[in-house]
């Protein structure tokens, strides 16, 4: 019984939140890894692209709520999401047309492209704050729990409850659909194969008659769609606030590099490694150990490696360790020369 309680505790506070968070990071990291693999630069504006997509979702959701549209028990934002995706795709394609295409044709170094993405980051950050403001917005209006801790305790007779929030399930399901669809696209369709070929070896791909503009365009479309989805799911699960998305870049980049640049499977694995490490390192294992120990005994210390305030440090340590130990990532990704 004690062991079951300990496991329930861990599931409730570590496994479930980390899985939802990992799914959100994975969707972000997939976009970054695609752009890294195909356009060969670190896209620092990715966070603001996500933010912009989520903002569009929220605005459309408000419009729907104003009209009295509701799909209760599901959150209304799910209806807004397609609009957010379209807007985000509009943003990425416009950004490519106005900013990145010029440099691509100039064949500049990846640093110049990264720097251009900083300019784009400023513009998007300003637009987002201008349109929706810097305050946090809560958009979760659906049913709160699928199973509440109270119900779980009654069902199982355990002391510890497992609460499953609806947004966590929605996050996981949508992320799963998105990832499966993406992998199907990359593995089975002509366009997807062309993208992988282009990412592996640009010159060979060009020789085989692959149209680079088309590959780049598809990459941006997918990135925009994933970015809006990731940010909307994050906002549903936690809260929407513009400044968060610049900070989210760090775990997203860590996941991308850990997985191997240009490797979608790696990005997903990397995202879950980052998310689980972050939650586990900042979780206080006090009661967990208490259940495993002798009766009615609880350790004096919190048994928490790091306070939650330092969760960036986890991504950062992962990042540095990967770069020093295995710079190509888990799945051998490309090493882009300067």
């Amino acid at each position, binding site marked *: 019984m004690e062991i079951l309680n300990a496991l329930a505790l861990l599931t409730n506070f570590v496994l479930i939140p980390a899985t939802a968070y990992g799914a959100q990071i994975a969707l972000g990291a997939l976009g970054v890894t695609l752009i890294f693999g195909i356009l060969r*630069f*670190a896209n*620092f504006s990715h966070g603001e692209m996500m933010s912009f997509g989520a903002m569009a979702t929220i605005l459309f959701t408000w419009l729907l709520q104003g009209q009295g549209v509701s799909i209760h028990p599901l959150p209304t934002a799910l209806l807004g999401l397609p609009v957010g995706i379209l807007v985000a795709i509009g943003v990425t394609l416009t950004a490519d047309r106005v*900013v990145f295409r*010029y440099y691509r044709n100039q064949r500049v*170094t*990846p*640093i*110049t492209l*990264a*720097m*251009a993405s*900083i*300019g*784009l*980051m*400023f*513009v*998007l*950050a*300003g*637009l987002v*704050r*201008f*349109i929706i*403001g*810097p305050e946090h917005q809560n958009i979760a209006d659906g049913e709160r729990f699928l199973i509440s801790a109270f119900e779980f305790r009654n069902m199982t007779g355990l002391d510890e409850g497992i609460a499953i929030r609806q947004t966590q399930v929605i996050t996981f399901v949508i992320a799963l659909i998105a990832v499966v669809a993406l992998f199907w696209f990359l593995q089975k369709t002509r366009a997807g194969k062309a993208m992988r070929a282009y990412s592996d070896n640009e010159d060979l791909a060009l020789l085989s008659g692959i149209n680079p503009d088309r590959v780049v365009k598809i990459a941006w479309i997918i990135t925009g769609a994933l970015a809006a989805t990731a940010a909307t799911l994050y906002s549903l699960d936690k809260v929407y606030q513009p*400044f968060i998305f*610049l*900070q989210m*870049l*760090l775990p997203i*980049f*860590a996941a991308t*590099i850990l997985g191997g640049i240009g490797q979608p499977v790696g990005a997903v694995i990397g995202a879950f490694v980052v998310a689980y490490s972050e939650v586990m390192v900042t979780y206080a294992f006090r009661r967990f150990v208490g259940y495993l120990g002798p009766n009615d005994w609880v350790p004096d210390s919190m048994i928490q*490696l790091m*306070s939650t*305030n*330092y969760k*960036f*440090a986890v*991504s*950062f340590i992962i*990042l*540095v360790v990967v*770069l*020093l130990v295995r710079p190509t990532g888990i799945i051998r990704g490309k*090493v*882009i020369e*300067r």
Partner: protein
Amino acid sequence: MTSRGALYFAIMAAALLATGIFQSWNVAFGILSMCLISAIMALGLNIQWGYGGLLNFGVMGFTALGAVTAMLVSMPPIPEAWEAGGAGIMVSLMLLIATVAVILVARRMVPDHLRTPVTVVLVIAGFFFIRVFYIPATERIEAVNPAETGYLGGLGLPILLSWVLGGLVAAGAAWLIGKVALGLRADYLAIATLGISEIIIAIVKYEDWMTRGVRNVTNLPRPTPPEFEIRVAEWFVGMASFLGTDDTRAAIALALKSIFIVLFLIVLVVVFWFSERALKSPWGRMMRAIRDNRDAAAAMGKDVTSRHLQVFVLGCAVVGVGGAMLTTMDGQFTPTTYIPLRYTFLIWVMVILGGSGNNWGAVLGGFIIWFVWVQAEPFGHWFMDASTMFMADDNWLRQHMISGAVYMRYMLMGVILLTVMRFAPRGLIPERS
């Protein structure tokens, strides 16, 4: 500097004068003093990016290190807090040093294949061992009069000393970070430094025993003479009669700002002189050679990694000095105000706009961008007001546009950066080739 460069500086001076005449001299002096600090920070970043080609996206972190040093140097110590937890903190510090020493020695002693596991075990053991002393000490310190202090206080030394110490602290941190991160490729280094700066901010924001964290430390001692001394000082009376002002309060504010401006100007001149000398020396030519073709420079026997470490440390030191100066002028330490867009990427816009690799360019960029950054707010307000004139005053769209006008400055910075990169990639005052 070319005649075109001189023209840009003349335009900049005219813009500041116009601000003084049409807005107020108080605003103009305020902008000028921040322009000087921005120029110093831009010089620091220019040493890294312009000379060495290092992509440091962690400027914010080193600014904050300078800032926290200014606070720790100037504030008086809190004896009660030292009594409560000073010993514990000192023991933790010793243990930290001891742990690092043990790890370094152990890494030498054990065979190669055991090195990583032994290091990991020692790090974890040391971590938990230190916390036994550290956590209770911090809790006791934070419990001492938390409404007013709740931290150890500082050293109670003159705040001007921190301008040197802030640079040294930032340099020390940069050395540690550079040792680990500088082997990385350019864009990886950018990501890593972005992460480090977030961690530094998290530390100064949440280690309350050291910095009071989000409760801020206000009323830092000022390096300027107190107001009652200025009021009767000869130069002040002369200045007031020259300006022909009756408003003594406003005149004193101006006088205080002028003192800062003079101090900042001295630092700027010193930093500039050293940077320029370094750039023109054999060392500067070597740095540019490494930047332009790393492999060729390495083949010529240049030690690329340690030269990179050198510019990284030097640049961070200058940024740290800037951070200390900024806090000195603000008179308070507020960790929550550190956001990357303002403290990292804005400095980048300055360097790119001015002309990377050129010190005059970095200074000009610092001036222009800070001026635009400040003036974008009233201008954005005016623009939104004027462009929505036809709407009723209580129209929600009009109100929304006016209240959001302040965020125009982010957009403006992005547009400036993208425009410069596209149409004048070498900046306003290009590097001499």
